[in-house]
């Protein structure tokens, strides 16, 4: 496949998906004539409430569902093409794993399905287990895992082949804040390596943190789409951030602004978000109780997923 930097790797054109009942009668139109184009290296988010058609769109992109109308191309081919699947990684909405396999066996199995060499499988498995904090649970059947742990192993299997396109359905669902941050960091790391990421979520903060572009779906249709910064920018207002000033100087600046613009400017202290604060607290607590240990949420990214590898 010839690949150009600006090439659209996922193209959805006029996609409509209608679910039918047993008698082939239309039951519900889950996706209604949507068109999306995702470029290489882009992190694209599908946003929307439950039942808006996000997961359905993803499933059509993966070939798990067939389009009723319109067409979908992944890397220029139909989604069911095996060569496309070689370069895909998919984390389903819920991690449906083989409950009797251990975490290590699970990753080995999926590695085999990509026909990875034994040495590579072993290396990647260990790195992914380390990255996702599952080393201690590596030999436990995944049936015994908590939802968060199952989610992590689900994410690990999606990355075992070092995919070019990663499709994540509700990636942070069921994860604790540490896990959420880790996933978001990972997404950014992968994007930094030129991977294309398509994710869907209804957690707006997640999408805002990592996505370059988003599309908002409601009742199967795209209601808004574009760059996150463009969509969220309030062009008729301005924020200036600077070190704290003496109170007199602050009053003078405010007065001057009021005189010049004729409006009352607002003044506040910028606040860190709760997630950053929470992680800082954990980091500090961890450093105090176990000096020298790696703080929670700071596990290294698997070597083969790091930039430059």
């Amino acid at each position, binding site marked *: 496949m010839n690949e150009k930097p600006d090439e659209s790797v996922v193209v959805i054109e006029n996609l409509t998906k209608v679910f039918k009942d047993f008698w082939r009668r239309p039951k519900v139109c889950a996706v209604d004539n949507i068109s999306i184009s995702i470029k290489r290296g882009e992190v694209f988010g599908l946003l929307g409430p439950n039942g808006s058609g996000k997961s359905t769109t993803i499933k059509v992109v*993966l*070939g798990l*569902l067939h389009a009723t109308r319109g067409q979908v191309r992944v890397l220029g081919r139909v989604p069911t093409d095996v060569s496309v699947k*070689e370069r895909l990684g998919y984390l*389903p909405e819920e991690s*449906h*794993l083989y409950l*009797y396999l251990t975490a290590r066996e699970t990753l080995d199995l999926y590695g*085999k*399905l990509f026909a990875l060499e034994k040495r590579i499988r072993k290396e990647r498995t260990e790195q992914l287990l380390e990255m996702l904090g599952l080393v201690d649970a590596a030999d436990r059947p995944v049936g015994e895992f908590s939802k968060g742990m199952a989610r992590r192993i689900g994410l690990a299997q999606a990355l075992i082949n070092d995919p070019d396109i990663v499709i994540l359905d509700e990636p942070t669902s069921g994860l604790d804040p540490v896990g959420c941050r880790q996933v978001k960091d990972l997404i950014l790391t992968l994007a930094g390596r030129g991977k294309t990421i398509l994710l869907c979520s209804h957690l707006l903060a997640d999408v805002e943190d990592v996505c370059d572009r988003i599309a908002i779906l409601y009742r199967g249709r795209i209601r808004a789409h574009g760059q996150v910064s463009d969509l969220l920018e309030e062009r008729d207002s301005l924020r200036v951030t600077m070190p704290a000033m003496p109170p007199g100087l602050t009053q003078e600046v405010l007065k001057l602004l009021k005189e010049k613009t004729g409006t009352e400017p607002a003044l506040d202290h910028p606040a860190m978000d709760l997630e950053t604060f929470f992680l800082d607290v954990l980091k500090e607590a961890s450093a105090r109780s176990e000096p020298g240990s790696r703080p929670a949420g700071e596990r290294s990214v698997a070597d083969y997923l790091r930039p430059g590898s």
Partner: protein
Amino acid sequence: MFLKTLAIASLTVRSAVRSRLLICLLVILFVVTLGIPLSVRGDGTALSEVKILLLYTLGTGSVILGLATLWASCSAVSHEVEHKQIRTVVVKPVGPYLLWFGKWIGIVILDAVLLLLMGLLTYALLFMSLRSAGSEPEDLGTINSQVLTARRLFLPKEVDLSSEVHRTVDELKRTGQMPEDVSEEETMQLIYRRLRARRTTVAPGASLSWEFDTQGLNTSRGSLFLRYRIGSSIGGSRQITGTWRVDAGKNGDSFNTGPIPMADGRHLIEIPASTISPGGNVTVRFENAAKGSSRTVIFHGDNHLELLAPAGGFLLNMVRSLLVVFCYLVVLAALGVTAGILFSFPVATFAAFSLSSIVLIVGFFAFSSSLTVCDHHDHDHGGGKASVMERVGETMLEGLEMALSPVRGIAPLGRLADGVYVPLWTVVRAVLILGVVCPGILGLLGGYCMSRRELAAN
């Protein structure tokens, strides 16, 4: 490709092991193998006990394995679709055909292991029971010569009756005696049947000969046996006396039994190996004793006369039989996996079970239908014409029987229990038809349906 197939196959095997299916089957097979000989009785002879052990133990075990195969293979895909694990598999570079193949191979491996264990257990049990039961030496001899062996069956050469049929029809036409209410074809069939009947009836004082082509016969393994089935003109009577003569011309000694009394039923006489030399023709002749000391003898059935020659050992025959059984399991696995792709688990199990049952019982129904057809053709007794529905049913059964005949008709366990050689060709045929062609067709169907099916629709 190999790695992917192996991964899916091992996943299927592991699923069976972890879900305790394998251990349950092992226990059931163990209980069946030990329990059947204790609970099923023969006709009271040591020979029948051995036959029962072989036929019923291996037969029941095979049926259980077949049912388990259907169940496991139906669940192999449908269960994963239902529990959504399939979604993480099909988005990997595994084509639908490869997925089907991997699942099938997994079940086939399980079957191979279980069948092997069952065979070993039965074999061990057979010889242990023979040693420990303290059977009479005479019984042991009979068992050795009639069950624990592999005898090739030679049937008499078919006598071409067509020219005689045509001659008779010409004669009837010439003399104007052709029946008007029956077609010429039916008349010819009747004449053929009558001539054939003559080839199976011997009046007192008369004799009847058969010729055997002994190509491929091996006389180095010991005595041969002539097995025949007779009935007398008066049922239940034992007033039949006859002499059997076996003559191989210049190629061997001639042998005769002298006049022996015999009853209705199936009999076996031993023929010294020196009588027959391989490769030539052997003539077998039955001479019925004169009126007063014997009655008219009727040779019953298609297999009224068989020459049995030792052709190999019991163990290898058992291996060949189990290979054929294995081929049946292989085709059941293919059927189950395909059904599991097409339907949900309960529907797939029902569909696969029904289809296999039809294949199994169509022979029974065709058999009973043939009896009914005979009744309908019995014009003389005014048996009444078959209704349209009956005709349609019969035609459908015949069609089904014809379509399924390559799959059916290979009954290795019956032969094994009868000490009859299971030819290599039978095994090759089973492997080709049941192990390759049928699974191939089912695999293509399964793979195609898999590629068309929406696996995330639920």
